[in-house]
């Protein structure tokens, strides 16, 4: 049909694509795994979202991608208090956070007089009722705003809609740097540096401290043994109206996620395919092999490289296999291709071709360019 024949007035806004500025809002992509804890400061489980514990808070939350989800969704992200008895003190806090890339949010004009409002919507389910907050923060934390929401009924999926006015000041990231932060507060000491008084209006931020609570926030998720909090269907769109969640294909979401993280691993370990060919190599010396991985999509920046374990990798070389001792990201690597130097213990022959195989179902090579 010619574009001129489309009657725009007859279209439902829910039919428009590319409304959702959030990647993996349906929590369907989880390249790193489907369960974990908040052991470190940043704990990515489902792609693009990180769970964090701050200020010396003990590792009291288990995390998982679970199949309990509201209608129209397959997965949610779940935090479960692991039963540890805690009393929050100091600057203890925990949060769930999304960090967008500057150039994807530049059209919001935040930090200028033309700043646009956005509407954040999400489905949430918790075993404890009470008030929690989503805090939006500029890239250097010089501006923040908290929008509160209430868990009305325990263990019930509820859709929350929060409209965030466009901030006319503050520092917002551009290019491939972090634009700012959208933080779902899980807990935080009230009255501490974790609390903001900027409720429903932008105000001067802390300038560095991660904000997780308002004076009205409950900390029951941290202090209640076995408490749970789940989220999915996260959507952020321009304007003051929440439309239906924009479902995208798994392939589409995976490709978007792989701009920030890519894990190469055996495709179907439970189905008997426990190995995966990784990349071809050639031997420069008896102990140095070089190869190139063409990344599936251009990443945000040159990624970092890690492997599950050297014992999970085998270097095949002519008719023999060599023992891998290290992987190094080569200096000619880019956001689109990784030049990898594989060091082997001995036995190589300069000039020979070969390849690297991931030799265990649980083995992997990972590339990280997260924000």
């Amino acid at each position, binding site marked *: 049909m010619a574009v001129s024949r489309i009657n725009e007035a007859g279209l439902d806004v829910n039919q428009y694509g590319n409304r959702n500025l959030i990647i993996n809002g349906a929590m369907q992509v989880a390249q790193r795994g489907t369960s974990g804890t908040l*052991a*470190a*400061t*940043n704990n990515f489980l489902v792609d693009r979202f990180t769970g964090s514990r701050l200020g010396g808070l003990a590792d009291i939350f288990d995390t998982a991608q679970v199949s309990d989800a509201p209608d129209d969704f397959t997965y949610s992200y779940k935090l479960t208090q692991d039963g540890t008895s805690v009393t929050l003190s100091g600057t203890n806090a925990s949060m769930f956070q999304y960090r967008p890339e500057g150039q994807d949010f530049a059209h919001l004009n935040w930090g200028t007089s033309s700043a646009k409002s956005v509407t954040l919507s999400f489905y949430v389910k918790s075993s404890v009722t009470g008030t929690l907050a989503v805090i939006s923060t500029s890239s250097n934390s010089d501006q923040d705003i908290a929008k509160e929401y209430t868990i009305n009924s325990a263990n019930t999926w509820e859709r929350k809609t929060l409209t965030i006015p466009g901030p006319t000041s503050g520092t917002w990231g551009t290019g*491939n*740097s972090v634009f700012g932060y959208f933080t779902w507060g899980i807990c935080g000491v009230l009255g501490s540096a974790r609390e903001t008084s900027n409720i429903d209006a932008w105000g001067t931020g802390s300038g560095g401290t991660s904000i997780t609570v308002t004076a009205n926030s409950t900390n029951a998720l941290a202090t209640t043994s076995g408490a749970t909090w789940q989220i999915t269907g996260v959507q952020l769109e321009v304007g003051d109206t929440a439309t239906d969640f924009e479902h995208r294909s798994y392939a589409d979401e995976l490709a978007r996620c792989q701009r920030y993280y890519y894990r190469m691993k055996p495709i179907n370990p439970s189905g008997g395919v426990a190995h995966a060919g990784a990349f071809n190599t050639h031997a*420069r010396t008896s102990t*140095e092999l*070089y190869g190139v991985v063409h990344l599936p999509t251009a990443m*945000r*920046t*040159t*990624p*970092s*490289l*890690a492997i599950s374990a050297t014992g999970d990798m085998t270097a095949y070389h002519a008719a023999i296999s060599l023992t891998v001792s*290290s*992987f*190094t*990201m*080569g*200096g*000619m*690597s880019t956001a689109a291709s990784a030049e990898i*130097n594989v060091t082997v213990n001995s036995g190589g022959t300069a000039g020979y071709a070969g390849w690297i195989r991931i030799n265990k179902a649980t083995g992997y090579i990972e590339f*990280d*360019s*997260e*924000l």
Partner: protein
Amino acid sequence: MNITSAQYQQDMDGDNCAVQAVIDGVTWSVPMDTSNTQYQAILEWAEEDGNEIQAAE
């Protein structure tokens, strides 16, 4: 990020090409790209007293 060690890695020409760092218990080969947030964190870590990116072996 909790960085516990950092050491330069060299390419075939003997030039520093990456930093091997243990970050949150995982050993990463981090490119010397200032847009890489792990490299940013390593540089900040190296500014703190007592921390230093070790020379390549």
